[in-house]
């Protein structure tokens, strides 16, 4: 015992200190938080406040507490007793206090996060950007808040790429994860579809008919440089980037019927993975990169299958429903989302990677297709015709908290959520 004590003591003195915690059983507890944004431009402050509140609410880590009467001058380095008392009375445990200023065409956000128990400052950061970056700045600030209070990476700065016919042609667009700031990234007035982000969120692979035959293209978002990766006979469709960013899996009918292939990011090193008489399409990688799920009608009807990424160990995952397609492997690895149909329209279903635990998480009307996971694995974006026209929606992975993201005219399909 004495030696143990000595060891413990020496460890203790080395660098670290020891803290004792006790737990209750697993309750889901959200952090009560308040967002207070001030600024000379009230409209600007209101925008920032709304973006922050929406982001924090969507993160599912926080309970946003209303606090109309609390007024703070500037952004103090430590909360004084009076304000702390007010906040605590409302049950607020964390307070976001920010001041937004506009000078010429620049905006500056002075953001701080406090803990109301002691008034301690958890972090302080200043953000600056051009006038058009207000929402982006707020998203960045909210991701930092999420990180500082949960250790998790927030998703407020992520984006969603999707196809839309709002200009007549079917072009690709990128929008913020909340549906704002949409912008076109193609513009060839042709048919562009099934976009897929690279793991570093710098490039997007997609299928385009711009040169007549549907082939796989890649656009680099920083340089806007575009290149055609595949130029095979037949259709080259549904590209999907491997988690390490080195390979792109896709479906091609170059050998007759559609099969799954991989190629490297330069379009070289073609490798065929599947050999069946049926159509094999829509590959999706497991986050480890060792497995792949895809759609195949080899068994008579389109169903979800999985295999190793060398094409071995193929097994069928879905046995319920007449038509299952568009699998998307969750970035946490624990779920596969897909479009499922048991008569009527398609719905979004999720299941475990072994095919068990199947749940239908949307209820219609219309049809729900093309699910894609948020990088935190807690939310799914998909295309739906529930209001007649096709739009992009997002929801929690249990189907709750549905939000419509696209608000413009036209139809929208095939969303893919950026990994970062």
């Amino acid at each position, binding site marked *: 015992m004495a030696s143990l*004590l000595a060891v413990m003591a020496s460890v203790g*003195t080395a660098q*670290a200190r020891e803290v004792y*915690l006790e*737990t209750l059983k*697993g309750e889901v507890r959200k952090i009560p938080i308040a967002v207070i944004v001030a600024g000379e431009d009230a409209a600007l402050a209101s925008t920032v406040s709304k973006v922050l509140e929406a982001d924090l609410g969507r993160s599912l880590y926080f309970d946003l507490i209303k606090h109309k009467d609390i007024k703070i001058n500037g952004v103090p380095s430590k909360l004084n007793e009076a304000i702390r008392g007010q906040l605590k009375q409302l049950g607020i445990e964390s307070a976001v206090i920010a001041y937004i200023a506009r000078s010429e065409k620049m905006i500056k956000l002075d953001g701080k996060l406090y803990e109301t128990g002691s008034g301690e400052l958890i972090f302080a950061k200043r953000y600056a950007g051009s006038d058009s970056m207000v929402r982006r700045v707020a998203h960045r600030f909210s991701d930092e808040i999420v990180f500082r209070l949960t250790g998790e990476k927030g998703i407020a700065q992520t984006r969603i790429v999707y196809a839309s016919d709002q200009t007549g042609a079917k072009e690709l667009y990128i929008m913020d994860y909340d549906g704002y700031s949409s912008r076109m990234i193609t513009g060839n007035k042709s048919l562009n579809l099934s976009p897929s982000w690279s793991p570093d969120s710098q490039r997007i692979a997609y299928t385009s008919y711009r040169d007549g035959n549907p082939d796989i293209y890649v656009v680099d978002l920083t340089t806007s440089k575009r290149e055609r990766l595949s130029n095979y006979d037949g259709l080259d469709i549904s590209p999907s980037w491997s988690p390490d960013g080195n390979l792109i899996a896709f479906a091609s009918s170059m050998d007759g019927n559609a099969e799954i292939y991989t190629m490297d990011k330069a379009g070289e090193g073609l490798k065929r993975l599947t050999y069946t008489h049926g159509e094999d399409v829509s590959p999706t990688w497991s986050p480890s990169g060792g497995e792949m799920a895809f759609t195949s009608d080899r068994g008579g009807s389109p169903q979800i299958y999985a295999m190793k990424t060398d094409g071995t160990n193929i097994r069928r995952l879905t046995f319920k429903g007449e038509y299952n397609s568009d699998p998307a492997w969750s970035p946490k690895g624990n779920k596969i989302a897909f479009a499922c149909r048991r008569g009527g329209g398609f719905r979004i279903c999720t299941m475990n990677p072994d095919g068990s635990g199947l749940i239908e998480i949307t209820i219609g009307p219309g049809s729900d297709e093309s699910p894609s996971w948020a990088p935190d694995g807690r939310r799914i974006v998909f295309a739906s015709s529930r209001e007649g026209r096709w739009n992009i929606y997002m929801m929690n992975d249990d189907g709750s908290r549905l939000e419509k993201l696209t608000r413009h005219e036209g139809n929208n399909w095939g969303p893919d959520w950026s990994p970062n």
Partner: protein
Amino acid sequence: MTITIPISLLVHLLLLFALVSSNILYKANTDRGYTPPPSAIHVNIVKIPRERPVERPPVPAKPEKKAEDVVKVEEVHKPAEKRPEPVKPVVPVEKKTAPKEVKKVEVKIAEPAKMALPEPAVPAAKEKKEVKAAESSTPKPAVSPPADVKAANVQEAKLTPPLPVVSGPVVEIPDFQYDYYLGLIRSKVGTRWSQPITYKEVKQTLVDFTIRRDGKIGDVKVAESSGDSYFDQTAVRAVSLSNPFPPLPRGYKEDFLKVRYRFIFGEKG
């Protein structure tokens, strides 16, 4: 006939010998104050040894149980021993702070315990009881310095003996003032803990781990087992699944923080 005479003589001699020997026994017994017939004595002698072995096993069995209890107390004692230590390192780390500050810090501990984490009071009280039990059974010099600090609490704990009642987190670093941070850890681990269904008894597992400045965790290990490895595993899993935690508080200047997480199974909230 000539043969029967020596035989009968031999038999008689044997009888005589037997009589003499029984007399001796008889005398011996009378000396002790007993007056039963020799045959009865024989029976008694046989019975007594039988009864004794029957009695003995249960007797040793009870001591064995006691021994187990003692072991349990010791197990509980381990944290008690370890706990004081963090206090020690803390003092040396901040050599500037005089021992007086420990008293000031005490108040801080009490405050945040109520504010940030009101519920987990049970284990704390329980722990303190255990500490006291451990102290009384095996008083050790290592326990004595913090014993003063805890004396008051121990007495409070006495007032609520039968059911474990949570009274707040025990923070062993006197100047660790970031209870919000511990609250964040608790809420994160809590949501990731798939607590197994327990029976009537309350069990606990202590899991040790370290948190680096950037919030990443390491060295996750069971410091004290519940005695049920499945329970222990759910506790370790809950911690591992919580990686990473939020970055360490700005004001906390060490490179990493050692945390002991107490999981109470079967606790009635």
